[in-house]
């Protein structure tokens, strides 16, 4: 069946192939579309007109896909995972992602009245922590966060979570649908801080996202990125690999009934540049980095990258 074939193609490591049930998740449908696209002859005039002369390929997990398809595929992944996103985060990281995000906001240490743009903010973990920090540490209620996400499903989950908080219906939080590569609704030099947590590895052109971040920040503004990164320690790296490829997709299957999406997620982590390379990309976008420019969390499973617009 098409879904099983797609499954086998995507899995880079040994899988519990016999156990995998057949199903028609949206992700599999998108993958089927991808396979159909790849089987088309290259001289097909209808596809040629919609592509650039030098259409590039990019990675989507361990597969290579045409650049213009990646965004659609990623959108599909997050449409699938949106409803269980927070639960799955807890299941996959054993709750450690909360510590990472707490540390992330403490490192940012926002001051009263800070305007934050939280890109790929999705379900609102960072935005909520930001507002809580300003309220608890400074007694401040003038801090503002614009929660931006490309995926309307994730944004819906975020809006619903915020209705349970005291920031609901205040000017402190606003929601915006948009693409990190092209923040056309946000003015130049308008934001004090820009954060992107576990989102930048899903962006097709990371350098464009970084350039946009540079554009919208005020001079002196801070760019901060929380993302999965490379584990250097060989012992922990082995354990982490086993956990990523053999355990997480199974949790995805059991909890969210969607193994493929979580397979993509763990593969996309491996395709993301390691800490030093990403720090170099941040510098190339024009940011000034302090010291190395990054801080490892949990032996490098996650890392915080930071730069200033100066």
């Amino acid at each position, binding site marked *: 069946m098409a879904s099983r074939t797609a499954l086998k193609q995507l899995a880079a490591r040994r899988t519990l192939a016999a156990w995998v049930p057949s199903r028609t998740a949206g992700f599999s449908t998108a993958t089927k579309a991808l396979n159909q696209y790849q089987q088309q002859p290259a001289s097909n005039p209808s596809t040629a007109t919609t592509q650039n002369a030098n259409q590039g390929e990019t990675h989507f997990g361990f597969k290579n896909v045409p650049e213009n398809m990646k965004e659609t595929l990623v959108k599909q992944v997050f449409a699938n995972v949106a409803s269980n996103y927070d639960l799955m985060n807890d299941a996959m990281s054993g709750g450690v992602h909360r510590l990472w995000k707490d540390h992330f906001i403490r490192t940012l*240490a926002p001051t009263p*009245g800070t305007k934050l743009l939280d890109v790929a903010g999705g379900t609102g973990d960072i935005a909520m922590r930001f507002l809580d920090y300003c309220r608890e540490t400074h007694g401040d209620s003038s801090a503002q966060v614009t929660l931006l996400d490309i995926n309307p499903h994730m944004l819906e989950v975020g809006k619903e979570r915020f209705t349970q908080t005291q920031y609901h219906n205040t000017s402190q939080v606003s929601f915006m649908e948009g693409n990190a590569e092209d923040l056309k609704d946000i003015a130049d030099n308008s934001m004090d801080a820009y954060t992107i947590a576990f989102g930048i590895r899903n962006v097709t052109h990371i350098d464009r996202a970084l350039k946009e971040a540079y554009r919208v920040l*005020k*001079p*002196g503004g801070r760019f901060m990125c929380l993302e999965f990164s490379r584990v250097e320690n060989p012992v922990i790296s082995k354990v982490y690999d086993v956990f990523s490829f053999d355990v997480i997709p199974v949790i995805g299957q059991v909890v969210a009934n969607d193994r493929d999406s979580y397979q993509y997620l763990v593969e996309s982590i491996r395709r993301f540049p390691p800490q030093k390379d990403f720090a170099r990309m941040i510098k190339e976008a024009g940011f*000034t*980095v302090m*010291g190395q420019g990054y801080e490892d969390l949990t032996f490098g499973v996650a890392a915080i990258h930071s730069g*200033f617009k*100066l």
Partner: protein
Amino acid sequence: MASITRRAGVALLMRSSSAIVPRTTITPSARQLTTSASWRTAEPSSSTSTGTTTSTSNSNGADHASPTASSTHGPKGTPDAILRAALALVPEYGWTTTSIAKAAESLGYPSIIHGMFPNGGADLIDFFLQDCLNRLPLELEGRMEGLSTQETIKLGTLTRLGMIAPYVDRWPEALAIMGQPSNVSMSLNHLAKIVDEIWYLAGDKSADMNWYTKRASLAAIYTTTELYMTTDKTLNYEATQRFLDRRFEDAATLGKATNDVLQIAEFGAKSVTGILRS
């Protein structure tokens, strides 16, 4: 000789109680002291040139009303400019991130830029100590001639202590921050540099164990006097100066006493070896 001491002492006292005025107009030569403090190793974007930041007084921070993305606001100037502006706010807000944030705002930056200094007050103190170290040779230029060794050391120590005078009310806070375990290496590093600088400017040319003993003893004298100065409310810090004199006397006595003890011990050791040989 005594009159020279008095003259130097009086001139020094007048200085120590007010803001220090550099005696020379020579542009300070850049002191390229590299440390591991992250804001000093700031790597700029690849579009501007890299360079070690220096804490000289000719920074570009005061030249602008609102920051623009021109080359004068690259990392060479901006972190130092913010910290220098923060020093002016220390008497009011202390050695804290608040001073840095408010100083950044006064220069036109969003206060979030305080994240450049993750150690907060400790980074501000680090900058201040480096700045004092850079100013010390300039302020002692030409005043060390014709004095005895002890007088030059006293002059150097008092000049250096005088630099703390504008912040003396907040200095206990600074000492407490410097005493925190994560900051101890930074503060000991600076102490070592202070005593080395004072001895060097006094013309010390020793190349044996004396190099270490001289600096160790001066470090002890300096730290105790600095601590005493925070409680001194007398005019022109006279009590601190007398305290310093007494500490030098102690050091001299201790030096003699140590010498005597070592002589006795040596004599005893020789006697014992003689007996064992016989």
